[in-house]
């Protein structure tokens, strides 16, 4: 049986935005390499990195995915390539003309900074990043890898426009994946407060069945068009999408209903309450006698609606979504507020708190690796290429660095696929092991240097 997912006693870093995970990450330390045997180090390294990378998949699956080859690129400067043909590097070898190859540009300052090492050991788990569920998590469409997996299994994810229900689908370069925006907003948004839940329940109970059906339809049906003309009219009127019919009266009623259902009456001022009640009244009367309504009923409701939303619009009002957006209220013009209210409406039918705001403790985990190109507006991303390492930079996010060389050695020894074992020359494997050893050495040296110079990384105490 698995221990606690976010345990505090034996902390494991997970692919999740949980606050327990954040706390564990904040007190994470490098492994003690002095008192432990090499095998212990390797075991811990492998266990702790595996707990982060694809803990939801079976060991055997990972064994099939593991490849010893670690991809990397070197950025080239076209100016340098134009100026030299490469012979300058062999110039004067042994006759006193050769320069230290690491210091090929002394005018640029420190050569070690100029030519950093390629962090190959961070790339051990690169094959995992190809998985669809991991990519969905990396694109910030889900709050954990497990949730991303659930989204895939439940059919909310499409690859190249087709529904893909296999979380283990290995993305190919150029594949585009899309997640239902409603699911993304649910996964990344703050949950409803107690008050919002309660008022939502009350609204659902109070609302007549026909309007409930309409609001449900507006919430779930993706193809319902948003009437852009409502934007200029009213602020939270666009809370729910109007029904697809062209009937202006129905559209107006839906807007009014959405406005009414998103308001908690107890939080209004006296003047707002007055406007609110008269709005409710005229909406009700128009609803009850839709077919035989007097000619002035529609413009009356229209006026009530705009009056009420105008009363709501002062930037300091509690129900104003602009203040919840983290934007300073003083610089928000009425047009901006209106725009924001249109984009981020109050709607109690949603499964997340509205107006939408990012969930707590999300920002320390927010990063998008370069092998993905994400368009947040449509909740879609393209997997551009496989992740690579480049000098001083790796694209596979991994929470631990000194560990990974050990993990790689552990895997190399055991997980080399037979097909590859036969194909690959053992000579190149030897090079990888040498790289590992060198990395270990380097990281130890860095550690010492940091201890001596009081580097910031070590100052970070727990």
């Amino acid at each position, binding site marked *: 049986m698995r221990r606690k997912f976010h345990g505090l006693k034996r902390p494991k870093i997970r692919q999740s935005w949980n606050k327990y995970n*954040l*706390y564990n*990450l*904040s007190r994470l330390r*490098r492994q003690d390499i002095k008192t432990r045997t090499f095998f212990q180090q390797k075991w811990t390294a492998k266990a702790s990195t595996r707990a982060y990378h694809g803990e939801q998949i079976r060991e055997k699956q990972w064994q099939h995915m593991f490849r010893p*080859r670690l*991809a990397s690129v*070197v*950025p*080239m400067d076209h100016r340098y*390539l134009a100026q030299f*043909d*490469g*012979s300058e590097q062999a110039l004067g*070898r042994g006759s006193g003309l050769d320069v230290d190859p690491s210091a090929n540009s002394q005018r640029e300052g420190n050569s070690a900074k100029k030519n950093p090492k390629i962090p190959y050991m961070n790339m051990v788990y690169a094959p995992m990043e190809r998985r669809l569920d991991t990519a969905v998590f990396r694109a910030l469409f889900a709050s954990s890898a497990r949730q991303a997996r659930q989204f895939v299994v439940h059919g909310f994810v499409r690859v*190249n426009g087709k529904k*893909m229900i296999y979380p283990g689908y290995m993305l*190919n370069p150029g594949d*585009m994946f899309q997640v239902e*925006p409603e699911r*993304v*907003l649910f996964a990344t948004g703050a949950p409803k407060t107690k008050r919002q839940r309660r008022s939502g329940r009350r609204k659902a109970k109070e609302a007549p069945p026909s309007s409930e059906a309409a609001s449900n339809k507006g919430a779930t049906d*993706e*193809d319902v*068009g948003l*009437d852009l003309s409502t934007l200029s009219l009213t602020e939270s009127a666009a809370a729910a999408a109007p029904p697809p019919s062209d009937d202006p009266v129905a559209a107006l009623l839906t807007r009014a209903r959405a406005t009414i259902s998103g308001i908690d009456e107890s939080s209004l001022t006296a003047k707002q309450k007055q406007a609110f009640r008269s709005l409710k009244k005229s909406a009700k009367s128009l609803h009850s006698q839709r077919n035989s309504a007097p000619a002035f009923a529609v413009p009356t409701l229209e006026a009530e609606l705009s009056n009420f939303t105008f009363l709501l619009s002062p930037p300091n009002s509690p129900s104003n979504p602009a203040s919840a957006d*983290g934007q300073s209220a003083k610089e928000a013009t009425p047009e901006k507020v209106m725009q924001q209210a249109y*984009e*981020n409406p109050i709607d109690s039918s949603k499964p997340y708190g509205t*107006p*939408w705001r990012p969930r707590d403790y*999300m*920002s*320390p985990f*927010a*990063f*998008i690796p*370069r092998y993905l*190109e994400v*368009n*947040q*507006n*449509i*909740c*879609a991303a393209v997997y*551009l290429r496989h992740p*690579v390492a480049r000098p*001083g*930079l790796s694209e596979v*996010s991994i*929470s*631990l*660095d000194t560990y990974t060389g050990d993990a790689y050695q552990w895997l190399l020894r055991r997980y080399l696929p037979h097909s590859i074992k036969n194909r690959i020359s053992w*000579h*190149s494997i030897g*090079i990888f092991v040498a790289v590992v050893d060198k990395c270990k050495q380097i990281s130890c040296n860095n550690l010492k240097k940091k201890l001596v110079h009081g580097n*910031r*990384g070590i*100052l*970070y105490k727990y």
Partner: protein
Amino acid sequence: MFAWLKGPGENFRRPLPDSTNYLSSYNSQGRLWRSLESSPTLALDEEASDPPAESNPESKENPLQSQVVSEDKLPPEDKQDLKPFPVNSDFTSQPVLSEELREEIYDRVVNNGKSVKIASAELSVDMSRVAAVVRLKTIEKDWVKKNKPLAKAYSKAILEMLPTTPLTKFPMRPKMHESINDLPVHPATTQQIFEPTSESRSFTRIDASKVFDPELLPADERISHPELIELERERRLGISQEERIMRQRERAKKELERRESKERRRDEIEEATLKRVLPAERGGNGGRWEWRFREISVQDAGKDGRAPGGVGWRYGIPHEDRKKGHVKIPTRV
């Protein structure tokens, strides 16, 4: 844990306005390194007063986020602030394209009709990324046209949390987003080779690539924008700008012709191997369908009959697609 969450951890509950908010940009007391460094006297005071507070987690005062936020302008993040994992110094949160830059890329490629290669070189954005941006933007515009709601609030919140590459207006040079001339490390080049050669020989990159592997191309031809090298070379020779532009146009034209002729040849070969038969009842033309026959070699199935090139069901070779333990996840969509 809850003491930490109420203390230094409180900084991470909400995003920092217009900035990233990673663990490594705070010290153990929950203060931003950036704000401490920008006001050294404050830092000194705190260092003097902090150690007793640090030993006792209960007495940890609340972080000074409110103070930090109330200051007019935070200093921009440095490299150290962009590391989400304090223990791993090699992983950095790299900037993403800002909304305006994406719009600009779409505009250049779709509205101005520039090629992906040129847009990539101008804005220093990788070619595959340019293509992806155009593809995603096209879908976005389509959604707008169909009145499909966009996740604007989500997009705005995410882009505020992440480092972004802004769009710079014309007189300023575009800010480099990423290296566009990445050279993939070829497996053949990962070994050290002792190659004896005469001292007088000019041993260039082309020679070196031949030593590693006779098939390997030199770095100049393996990068994504080899034409930039040629342009730079001409600039160094002192050729006038008009002349260079003309030459580049000619080269681009030639390249396009080459690619087109290649495609044409491929189509011709395809056409030659394909035999089309039109239905007879319509007099041999004008039908909505046709038969297409292609030559298939039995030998494609290989010696054991299981080679991937083999076509159709072969006697004695069972289909294993319904067998337990075989992977049925599609490999491409």
